[in-house]
């Protein structure tokens, strides 16, 4: 990798390092806090009684089944909603900050006057987004693995790894969507609005639609369903689940690069 290519990747990574470290710190703190409550939760019977009184569909919709097991506890408190949402939000946020926001603020002007192609600049920024989402995933894994033995929370490394990879890919799917929108049109509000809408709508489709018989089939349209419906903390993950997230993520990113390279660059 030559200096120019490296700069096109590391420059954007440096540009969002504060935000990246903040995201990483927040996710780490969330994992630590959640894991810290496991001993108290494990011994509590009143919570199980409460959950048992809830309709089965609602319990499943919110990932509350088997809350007394380590996998059920982590699913219900972290991996069913919270962490995937944070990863999706981080992916959208990084993508928006490094593309649409920068362009909208007029900060692409000097950069694109250098001997670099528009494609290479956008690709470097997309790679930086991927790298930060990857780092978030890695930080989550390290903190989770470091904390679990302290409180006696036992979860298989392979299950945890596949769950985290799926959460990371879900983040990249939404980052790819944000990059595609930014490639089409440099409006930060559009990138954030559409990106977050798709994330929240997908989450609701995957969790709530299965409760309703007529809507149940539509749940399979959600990326959240592709990622997490197989309960990866408990069951081995089928290979296609990785593929249906990774392929659109890369495809949307390439679409963003293509669209950006063909359009005018917005002035401040």
């Amino acid at each position, binding site marked *: 990798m030559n*200096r120019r290519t490296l700069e096109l990747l590391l420059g954007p990574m440096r540009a969002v390092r504060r935000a990246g470290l903040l995201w990483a710190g927040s996710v780490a703190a969330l994992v630590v806090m959640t894991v810290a409550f496991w001993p108290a939760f494990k011994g509590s019977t009143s919570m199980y009684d409460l959950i048992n009184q809830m309709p089965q569909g609602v319990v499943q919709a919110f990932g509350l089944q088997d809350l007394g097991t380590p996998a059920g506890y982590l699913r219900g408190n972290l991996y069913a909603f919270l962490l995937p949402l944070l990863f999706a939000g981080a992916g959208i946020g990084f993508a928006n900050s490094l593309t649409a926001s920068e362009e909208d603020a007029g900060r692409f*002007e*000097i*950069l694109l006057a250098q*001997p670099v192609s528009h494609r290479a600049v956008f690709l470097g920024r997309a790679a930086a987004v991927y790298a930060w989402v990857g780092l978030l995933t890695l930080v989550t894994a390290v903190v989770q693995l470091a904390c679990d033995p302290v409180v006696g929370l036992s979860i298989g490394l392979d299950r945890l790894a596949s769950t985290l990879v799926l959460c990371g890919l879900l983040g990249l799917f939404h980052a790819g969507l944000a990059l595609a929108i930014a490639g089409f049109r440099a409006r930060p509000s559009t990138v954030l609005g559409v990106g977050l809408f798709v994330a929240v709508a997908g989450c609701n489709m995957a969790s709530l639609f299965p409760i309703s018989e007529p809507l149940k089939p539509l749940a399979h349209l959600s990326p959240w369903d592709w990622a997490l419906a197989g309960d990866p903390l408990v069951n081995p993950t089928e290979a296609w689940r990785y593929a249906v997230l990774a392929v659109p993520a890369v495809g949307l990113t390439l679409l963003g690069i293509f669209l950006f390279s063909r359009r005018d*660059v917005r002035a401040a």
Partner: protein
Amino acid sequence: MVARDMSSRQDVTPVLVVDGLAKNYDSLQAVRGISFEMRRGEVLGFLGPNGAGKSTTVRCILDLLRPSAGRISVFGLDPHRDGVAVRSRLTYVPGELRLPDRMTGSEMAESLGRLRGGYDPRRRDELAERLRVDLGRQNRQLSSGNRRKLALLLAFLWPAEMLVLDEPTTGLDPLMQHEFLLLVGEARAAGASIFLSSHVLSEVQRAADRVVVLRSGTVVAQGTVEELRSRARQRVEVWFERKVPAGLDRVEGLAGGLVDGRHYNAYLVGSIQPLLRFLATQPVVSMLVEEPDLEEAFLDLYQEAS
């Protein structure tokens, strides 16, 4: 002064050709089929009021905007298809200057150095001293004038064949404007061609060899500064021994003549020769011809165009 002294070294090969360039934003026609050339080693002034289409043209040259019609050639290359090759040979100061808030001047120079290659820290320090730029401060802590100086430093830091400068002295004090003109002269002496887009007439008048004047997206005039100046109205006053002679108003180029006894006051457009020939046969006591400056020519062009 340096710029003028180098005029004999000019090469007529165009380094920039703009041919029928048009750029539309939805229904707005920002640039309407303009054509001009810039020769190698030339300082080309690109003049026009706000909204004339100057920045749009500059951004098309840099491939930041895609033309709606027409053709641009830079160093004989297409700025879109051969963008990397073109931009490796030129540097740019944008009109609307936005720099990354948290980066320092040094960090920006190093970052661009990694993209361009050929980064020379000694040249950077020399320019920082001349332009009085504090390279250790974050961009967000710099005033608009200091940010502009940093952008100039980044443009003059590399030995480019062409400098594209869009309103480069906005916010600079007179001392720095003078330093800028010196830098332009030095770059030109080193063989660079300079595309100087500005609405600061005095700056263009001092630096440019030729001028292209833009108004409402069309070229209303182009030529050397002298040619442009010759198109301007000159105020002429003549005092005669006796009353103002008949027929003076019919002299070619004179207009708006006012007679006050033995004193005649009018505007002259074009050559002064017909007037001098007429006056040579008359009892003239004294005569005053005010030298038109580019500003007057510029304003006249705008009035003509509007």
